């Protein structure tokens, strides 16, 4: 399970019109301290929605755990689906809060945006989000695209960053989901930014069993994965660094309705954002996916261990 599924299930993806960007909802981004903007209130409770994959559900329950500890009454509605369902739901008032990803959310509300750096993206989001919605400060944890090679491949060709791939032009096989062939964060951008040309592109799946199986067996040399994928650590795969910032940041960012964004909520979520790291999130995903634990239990245990929930 991964972040890209948020962009739409197969059929939703085929028929989704881009959500019209509307820039009338510029909101203040001062997080953590002071009064919230616009007089939002969480007194009547907050409904948290989550998307249809493990990590997003863990995040939803983490939000619930820290908000409960701050005295806000929460309801979690897990597994609601994709962004095509979630964004209308939060606009319509069915849910109030949603764990989101900076780059992917920005691409959804403003597909033409070129911002890739965290601060830039936060500003672009503030401008592009529909009226009534705002993002709170982004956290440390990040679930972004990654291009990974096996340890043997890295040693054999001396690969540490995406720029090193150029030295092996015409030799390496890339494996990824079909869309990566025509995407900026994919074959197109790797050529434009790093001058990389692959010997071949194999259309497989999105950080799933096919692409990981092919990487393990050596059928592909470079694979497109996600940074919070537990198999990266387990197999000691090497994630190539991105010195030119081709890959947009995907820090976890709370998307919230203005009507609920008060200082209590801001403070609680900002604290969580400062504590939760990418490695932590990867570990929590692993507990759910591999150890088959309940996402709510995993989230509560983490919040307690870190002193975020009493």
């Amino acid at each position, binding site marked *: 399970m991964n972040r890209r599924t948020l962009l739409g299930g197969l059929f939703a*993806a085929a028929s989704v019109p881009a959500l019209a960007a509307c820039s009338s909802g510029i909101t203040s981004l001062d997080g953590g301290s002071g009064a919230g903007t616009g007089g939002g209130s969480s007194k009547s409770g907050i409904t948290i929605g989550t998307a249809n994959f493990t990590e997003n559900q863990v995040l939803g329950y983490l939000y619930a755990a820290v908000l409960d500890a701050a005295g806000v009454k929460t309801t979690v509605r897990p597994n609601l689906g994709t962004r095509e369902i979630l964004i209308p739901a939060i606009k319509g008032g069915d849910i109030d809060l949603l764990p989101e990803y900076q780059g992917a959310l920005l691409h959804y509300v403003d597909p033409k945006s070129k911002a890739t750096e965290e601060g830039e993206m936060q500003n672009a989001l503030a401008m592009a989000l529909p009226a009534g919605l705002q993002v709170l400060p982004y956290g440390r944890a990040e679930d972004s695209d990654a291009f990974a090679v096996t340890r043997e491949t890295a040693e054999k060709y001396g690969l540490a960053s995406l720029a090193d791939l150029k030295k092996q032009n015409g030799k390496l096989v890339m494996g990824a989901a079909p*869309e990566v062939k025509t995407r900026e964060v994919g074959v197109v951008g790797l050529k434009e930014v790093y001058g990389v040309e692959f010997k071949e592109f194999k259309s497989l799946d999105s950080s799933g*069993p096919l692409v990981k199986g092919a990487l393990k067996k050596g059928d592909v040399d470079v694979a497109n994965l996600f940074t919070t994928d537990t198999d990266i650590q387990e197999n000691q795969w090497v994630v190539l660094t991105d010195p030119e910032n081709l890959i947009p940041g995907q820090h976890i960012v709370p998307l919230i309705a203005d009507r609920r964004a008060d200082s209590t909520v801001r403070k609680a979520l900002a604290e969580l954002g400062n504590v939760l790291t990418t490695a932590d999130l990867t570990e929590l995903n692993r507990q759910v996916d591999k150890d088959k634990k309940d996402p709510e239990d995993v989230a509560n245990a983490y919040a307690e261990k870190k002193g975020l929930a009493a």
Partner: protein
Amino acid sequence: MYELFKNLGDWLVSGEQWSGSDGIGHRLAEHLQYSLLATLVAAAIALPLGLLIGHTGRGAFLAINLASFGRALPTVGLVVLVFLASGLSMWPVYVALVALAVPAIVTNTYAGMTAVDPDVKDAARGQGMRWHQVLFQVELPLALPLIMTGLRLALIQVVATATIAAYVSFGGLGRYVFDGLAQRDLVQVLGGAVLVAVVAVALDLALSALQRALFRHRPA
């Protein structure tokens, strides 16, 4: 809606869409290659099996149930399973397609064989025909219409399912469906789907015409 169909029409007839390694011509050839090869292999396995159990009447329960089991296998699951074992090759695709085609051929061949009038077989044996003469000169000709139906059924299923080759990075008309979905290009998805349907129907018509030409002398 009108716009969509107009774009689909443009996509299907544009010259550049037909040429090159991602062109319709090449993808069509790949699709036919996968489908025909898989059906041939399936026939080579299933025909002797169906004839044998039909002729002897033994092992029918086991074979028919195994065939039903084969029909119930989810094709994509089988592809992923074989993929994880064999790695990136055409094996997962062919294993899945053959597994899909075998049941239809086995069950229809068996059904055709059991539909042969026992009196006719008895008479053939009474005339002193050996078992292989009964099988090839009496039972097989009488069972052929149903056997052909099984082959047609298998081929249609395989043509429609050969799109999964694209799921594990290979070609065929499924390339348009998978790439189109991933790239949110609805016209490409529809184009691929329409082409698959056209190929399936065309092959079925061709086979049924062949069947009629071969067995003109008796009702099929």
